[in-house]
Structures are given as structure tokens and as C-alpha cells.
């Protein structure tokens, strides 16, 4: 279906499915609103009748807890944003979901783990943390760029021009393969990053935020700025935008479409590699499934921000990160759902479904390749 998911704007809902969808939307929005209201009510006064009705055992959050959640959400969201760039750019140019992009991110985290452990063995990790960090970032970006480019060359390029689900299925296969290759080569156990210095681990005395989170946000912001400059102000970036706009016309204008697409994959891979290192710094542990959930969440982030939109990917990442970190406690807990932290991932998926249900074009609107646009 070319026009994709198109809400009917004229007249009353036509089919049963439309009516059901409307009910579902109202229900979802209502649930969120009631949860929020209950949360606010119990923040004002725990013995509030409304809050009691919604969940008798609710405890609410203190200001510090809330801030902690938001900050960790922002840090993770910045990471999601970096991964989302890869999804968004590839979708913007080729019009398919590169399902294996999450695995590229996982490879980045793995590379970082291996390199940093080797550095720690050599004693460099402790003595020169910033220097080694820059080193592992560079190594990981190179590895991930290579992986992404090889992936494009081997699996996706021969499929250019085939029906849109074919490359998607292929990318699922690639993702499956990379995940299991990681198991057979590196073993199925979770692997730890070496210990980081105190200033990264502990909360900063002045602003009460962990150094690692500040680091992640700063790195993400800087790389986002660089990428924005590359795409908006260099010739290669212009070529990317042109190919995204209309590959055929771009080719007629003398742009090497193949090389541009490779560049898109390379940039996406490099960003995923960077995000992998950030994951390592935030969680200090990596396993072969690391790429799956962040990948899905990053894709949601790309959709939230509007596919094909760089700033949108970052904004989407931040909102998904904050939503998944605050959402369960803000909305589900006041509604009386127990064990909300287990449902964290379910909430992330629910956000994705909700976004596609309510606003599939994202906040800033999609920028799709010419033939997918209608």
C-alpha cells in the first residue's frame, strides 16, 4: 500500500476497523491521562481520594527520584538517538528498515569491550582514561563502519529494486546471523567493561548527576553537531540529501548513487559504533542480545522524530528514553499495575505501537524517498 497508513479525514468512520481504532486511540489516551492525573493527585496528597481509588498502595516519587529518572532517560535517549540516525538515514534513502542496525550497535559495544579490556591489561585504561576512551571510540567506529558497509554490499545492494519486504526480511536474516556469530565467536556469556574512574561512576557533587551520563549526553550532542554539519554543509551531505529526495534524478545530476548509499551506511554505522561505546560506559556490560531492544527502541525513536529527519531522530531518541524511564512509574504504577520495572520493555514497545497508531509520520514529518511518498 503506497499511501501507507492514511487516516480518513472526511466524514464519520467508515468500517468497523476504523471505529475500533478510534476506540483504541481514545482508550490509550484516556489511560495515559488517568494515570497522569492519578500521579499528580498522589503527588499533591497521598491520601487523595482519587489517588487511593487508582492505586491504594501508591507511594509516589520524591523530587530527587524523579530527576534521577529523567536524567537517566535523557542519557539513554541520547544513545537511542545516535542509533536512530542510522535507521532514519537508511530508511530516508532506500526506504527499508535495516533491522540489522541494532546488531551493528552491538558490535560496537563488543569491540569497545574487547579493546578496553586489552587496554586495561596494558594499564593504559587507568592511567589515561580519556585517551583510551577516544581510542576505543575510534576503533569501534571503524569496525562498525566496516560492518555496515560490508552488510550493504553483500546483503542489500543486490536487492535494490526488489519489493520492499524482501530487503527487510534479508536484514532480519543479517541480524540473526550477526547475533549468533557473536555467540559462537565470543561466547554466550555477558562480558564486562573494565572499571571506570570515580569521576565517571559517582555523582557529581555540584549537580548531583553521574559523570557517565553527562559524558554520554555531551558526546552525543557533539557528534550530532558534527553530523549535522556534514549532512547540511558538505558536498557529500548534499549528495545524500539529493539521493534521499529522488535517486533517479540525483543520478541524472551526476551523483554516484551507489557511493552515496555506501556513505549513508558508513555514517550510520559510525554513529552506531559510538553509541555502542556509550552503552558500555553507561551499563559496563555487553551480551549478544544487547543490540535487539535498543535497536527496536531506536527505530521507534526514528519514527517518533519523523523518518529521514536528523534532528527528529535525536528528539525522538530523547523522548523515547525519557518515556521508558519515567513512563512506567508515572502512568502504570498509579494505575495499580504491580512490578512495573519488569514491564519497562513492554512500555517501550507500547510507545512504538502508540506512535505508529496516533502519528505514523512522526513529530517533524517524514522525508521519504520519492517512490515511497504518496
Amino acid at each position, binding site marked *: *500500500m*503506497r*499511501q*501507507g*497508513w492514511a487516516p480518513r479525514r472526511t466524514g464519520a468512520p467508515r*468500517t468497523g*476497523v476504523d471505529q*475500533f*481504532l478510534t476506540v*483504541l486511540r481514545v482508550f490509550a489516551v484516556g489511560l495515559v491521562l488517568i494515570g497522569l492525573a492519578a500521579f499528580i493527585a498522589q503527588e499533591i496528597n497521598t491520601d487523595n481520594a482519587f489517588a487511593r481509588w487508582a492505586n491504594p498502595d501508591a507511594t509516589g516519587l520524591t523530587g530527587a527520584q524523579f530527576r534521577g529518572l529523567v536524567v537517566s532517560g535523557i542519557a539513554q535517549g541520547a544513545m537511542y538517538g545516535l542509533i536512530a540516525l542510522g535507521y532514519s538515514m537508511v530508511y530516508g534513502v*532506500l526506504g*527499508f*528498515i535495516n533491522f540489522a542496525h541494532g546488531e551493528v550497535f552491538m558490535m560496537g559495544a563488543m569491540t569497545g569491550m*574487547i579493546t578496553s*579490556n586489552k587496554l586495561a591489561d596494558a594499564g593504559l585504561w587507568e592511567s589515561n582514561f580519556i585517551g583510551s576512551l577516544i581510542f576505543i571510540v575510534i576503533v569501534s567506529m571503524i569496525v562498525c563502519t566496516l560492518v555496515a558497509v560490508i552488510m550493504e554490499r553483500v*546483503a542489500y545492494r*543486490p*536487492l*535494490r*529494486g*526488489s*519489493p*520492499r*519486504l*524482501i*530487503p*527487510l*526480511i*534479508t536484514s*532480519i*536474516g*543479517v*541480524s*540473526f*546471523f*550477526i547475533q*549468533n*556469530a557473536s555467540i*559462537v*565467536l*565470543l561466547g554466550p556469556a555477558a562480558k564486562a567493561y573494565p572499571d571506570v574512574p570515580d569521576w565517571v561512576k559517582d555523582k557529581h557533587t555540584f549537580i548531583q548527576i553521574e559523570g557517565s551520563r553527562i559524558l554520554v549526553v555531551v558526546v552525543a550532542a557533539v557528534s550530532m553537531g558534527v553530523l549535522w554539519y556534514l549532512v547540511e554543509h558538505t558536498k557529500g551531505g548534499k549528495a545524500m540529501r539529493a539521493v534521499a529526495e529522488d535517486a*533517479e534524478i540525483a543520478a541524472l545530476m551526476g551523483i554516484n548513487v*551507489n557511493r552515496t548509499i555506501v556513505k549513508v551506511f558508513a555514517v550510520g554505522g559510525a554513529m552506531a559504533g559510538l553509541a555502542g561505546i556509550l552503552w558500555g560506559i553507561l551499563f559496563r556490560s555487553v551480551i549478544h542480545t544487547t543490540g535487539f531492544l535498543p535497536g*527496536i527502541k531506536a*527505530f521507534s525513536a526514528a519514527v517518533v522524530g519523523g523518518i529521514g529527519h536528523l534532528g527528529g531522530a535525536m528528539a525522538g531518541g530523547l523522548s523515547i528514553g525519557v518515556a521508558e524511564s519515567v513512563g512506567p512509574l508515572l502512568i502504570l504504577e498509579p494505575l495499580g*499495575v*504491580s*512490578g*512495573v520495572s*519488569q*514491564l519497562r*520493555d*513492554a512500555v517501550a*514497545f*507500547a510507545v*512504538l*505501537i502508540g506512535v*505508529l497508531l496516533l502519528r*505514523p509520520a512522526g513529530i517533524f514529518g517524514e522525508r521519504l*524517498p520519492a517512490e515511497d511518498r504518496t
Partner: protein
Amino acid sequence: MTATLPPETGAAGASAEPPLAASRPALAQDWRRLVRMGAVGAVAQVFIALSNMPVRLDERVIVKPVLSLGYLTLLIVPFAAGHRVGHQIKREGMPQHAAGAHEVAGGAACGAVAGGGLSLLAVLLANFDLREPLVNWSPMLAELLAFGNATRFAVVIWLLIGAAVGALGGGLRLLGPRTRRAVVTMALAVGGAAVLEPLVVDLAEGMRLEALTDRLYARRGGINWTSALGLAAGSGILAVLGRGRIQQARAHIAELEGAQRTRTNGLLILATAAVLIVLPLFAGKLTNELLANVGLFVLLALGLNVVVGLAGILDLGYVAFFAVGSYSAAVLTAATSPRINPELPWLVALIVVVIITGLVGLFIGAPVIRMRGDYLAIVTLGFGEIIRLIFLSDWLSGWFGGSQGITKIPGAGIFGLTSVAGTDPRRVFYLVLAFCAIAIYVSWRLERSRLGRAWMAVREDETVAEAMGINTVNVKLLAFVVGAILGSFSGAIFANKVGSVFPSSFLILVSMVILVVVIFGGMGSIIGVIAGAALLIGVLGGPKQPGLLQEFSEFKLLIYGALLVWMMLARPEGLIPSARRTRELHQEEFLQDAWLRGEVDTDDGNGAEPEATERS
């Protein structure tokens, strides 16, 4: 409808070869291609070696004492590389014998480069210790590569082996089609006999034919090399004698029409059914267990085939329906289920299960059905994961037992006559067989019904289908629900067969494996899907179920992933494709052929006019 990027010049890679000057046989281009293919082979070799496949599979002997599965995994790459290079080296304008020498030499060189990867690895293994990141960097691997000798030996021997096997691969093309078929049949016969060893031994015991298998197989597994030779010779002779007979028979059947055709089909189906009903009587527990597992996956794959194959909806969360079917069957029949335990008889419970799963299918399907195909895939994946997380959560553990699951589920009782539990795999198999028959019949009828045609129209082009007056939303939703119901059958059987359900049985992985089965077999083709399930699940095994090659359990998911990519690249229509699907996927080629022949293929009412496709 699928007007994405036009293929750039050179984008198609190997298939778009620039025209070569016929008078210059060995070109720099050939060399470059040869070295590139060899290098890819070398990387693949090193990857396979480091994945621990050779060491782990070394125990499984194929031909005793010559060949084990472990070494086979190392030999296959140079063979394939040599074969491929032999194929790519142009023979136009060359005399026949020169071309032949080229292919063999090219294959040998390519194989040697690929084998060189292992030589390099052997040297590295001897001199460096990379155990830290690479878990399989072991002395065992070094020993295996060197056949127990010094490293120097490994370096030389792998270059030689690579060259020899590569030359074989390149030379295979030289044989005439008849000889080649005989050779392939021989290889398949020996390989098949080795892979099917547990099955054959088991059946032979049931039929009191141990004397035969004792002669065929060695005591500790693997075919005796004498028997292997005999088997190869026998099958080769059969292949030469029977050449063309099968094709003739098939052509003969295809020519039949009307009542005769129906009768032949009926006879074929009856014969298959008879074999499947009689076979388990002679088989032991393991074989029956295997058959039951395969049947379960056939059932699942047939359900997914309706959704993916017929209606073209890529549902990545199909496991959700399997899970809902299992859990509702468990809750309805088990006395131990936490909240409600009506302890219904299984068949009554099945009806309720079908209704519940159908409703869940409707509920999941309705919001996603309007989405673009790829968004739909991701969202169904999300639903699949949400369903599992909900079953797992403490929130509803009062209903579904959380991570403890539901245990002590009774066997499936049929009219109070028998009870089918996992302890008796033969009965399970018969139950599964019955449901498979239902599912096959339903899919077969659906495919030929008005609804089936509507599905296929939607799959081909939704906009056109809508213009033809098909209510696309309802039709797709129906596909979703039918798929869900078929999935719930296997769910219900699974719960009562295993006797317990845990959330960990319903990982997204299961969806992916079913998807691989459907795609490998051929989307939209019932026979293909059955064959795919039998081959993949039967030989390699399901997500948790062991197959005939139990040694592969660590690697099967890796192979599934690679297989999915390879299928999409090489044969997107699957192993046994449905004719219509093939036409869709190769529409442009078909049209090109028609155009070259000077005719435009519209006689089947399916092919579009070339002008129309060019414009879209």
C-alpha cells in the same frame, strides 16, 4: 508497483559481467575475481574454524574413518568457491578443452586461496594467544587443523586440500549433465544416509532389519567406507538408469486433466497418508518425537504461510498466537493453573482456545492492518514481545504463573477415548498429523477460494486490489485471524504435549524460525512449507527441539540466519515455489523474456503489459 531504484550499471555485482574479449582467455578481471572469491572463502573458512564448528562436529562421523562432519564444514567452502569461480570464468570462444582446463585451474587456485586462510590461522594459533575475546581459540582447533602433526604440516596440507577440493568444484561443471546428475545423486545418497542415521537405525530396529543397518553403519556412528562406496555406486547406477523417468512421470501427471488428474492426486495423497500412518508404528520413541516436532512446526508454518505467503503481511510476532493458544489451553485444562481452572476436556477447551486466539488476532490485527508493510512487521514484533512480557510479569502472575509458568497440564483427551501426552510421542504425532491434515486442507481450499484470490491480489498490489472492489482491510484482517487460529492449534497441542508452559518457550526467536521455514520452503506454497519444515526442523532442529544433527544445536540459529539472507539473495521464491509467487518476484524477467520472444504474456490474466510496469 515496485518501482524503487533502477539497478545502476554494475550494481548487480557478479551477475552483470562486462563483455569480455573472446580471444583473451585469462584476463586480469578473471584474476581479480578469482582472488576476491578466494579471499571471501578464506574469511569464511577462518570464521567457520573459529566458530568451533569443526571441533564440535568432529564427533559426528559421516564416512568412517575418512570424513567427519567437522571436516566437511571446512571442505565445503573451497568447494563452493571453486565451483563458483569455474562458473564465472568465461568460456566463450575458447576451445572446449581449454575452457575445461581453465575451470579446473581457476577452481584450484581459488580453493587454494581459501584453504590458505586456514593455513594462516594455523600459524596464528601456534604463535598468538587470542583466547580472551575469541572463546574457541584453542589448542584443540590447532590440533584438528594439523591432523595432529606440526604447524608446518597444517600450512601445507590446507593449501593442498583447498586446491584439490577447489579443482573438484571447478571441474564439476565439466561433466556432462548426465554424469553430473549421477555424481550429485551419489553425494546426496551418502550424505543423506549419514544424516538420517538415527532415523534409519530406529526404523530398522522396529522392522527387525538390524542386520542391514549393522552392515551399513559403523558401531560408533557413520557409514562404513565400504558401504559408502556401495551406496554411492548403487545410487549412481540408479541415477543413470532412472534418468528422466521422474521428469517423464511428472510431465505425464501434469498433462492429466479433469477426473483423471483428481484421481492421481487423490492416490498420491492417500499413499503419503498411508506411509505417514504406518511409519510411526515401526519407529521408536526418538523418531516419533522428532516427527511430532516436525509436525508441530508444519502446523505453525502453515499458519504463518496464510499470513505471509498468501496475504503478503509480514508478521514477525506470530509466536504471540502460539503463546496465547498454549497459555489458554493450559489455563483451561490444567488443575494447577493459578486463578481459574475449569479443567475442561481438551477438545472443548480447544474450541474456547480457538475463539480466544481469534479474538486476540482480531485485537492485534485491527490496529496494525492499516500500517505500511514494514511498520507492520516491527509492530507485530512488538506485540509478540509484549504478549510474552505480560505472561512473564508479576502483574498477571496470579493468572499465568509468571516465570514459574503453568505445570502439570494433563494430556489431550480425545472424546474420553485416549489421552495424548508427551510421554507417548506416537499418539502425539497422530494428533499433530490430524491437525496438519486439517490445516493443509484449509490452506488448500482457501488458496483457491474467492478470499484466497483476494489475498493474493492484495499481496501483489494493494491499490489495484482496492480498485477492483476488494475490501483490503477486512481481507487482510481475516488473513491475520485465520493465521492466528492455525497457530493456536499448535499452541494447544504443544501445551498438552509438553505438559507445562513457560514464557521462555515463546521468545521472538520462535517467530523468526517459523519465518525462516516458510521462506526457505517457499512463501505461499503448501508443499514447500511442509518440505521446509521437514528439512530444517527435522535435520537441524527447532529453537529448542533437537533435530537429526543434534551436534548442530549450537550453530543452527547461525545457519538459519545465513540461510535467510542467502535465500533472499539467490532464490526469494523458496525451495519449492508456488508458480504465482515466482511470477511476481521475477515479473521483470518474465516480461523481458516475453518481449524478446516478441509476444506479450497476457494469456493467464495475470501478467501485466510491459508498458504498464515501466510506468509504475
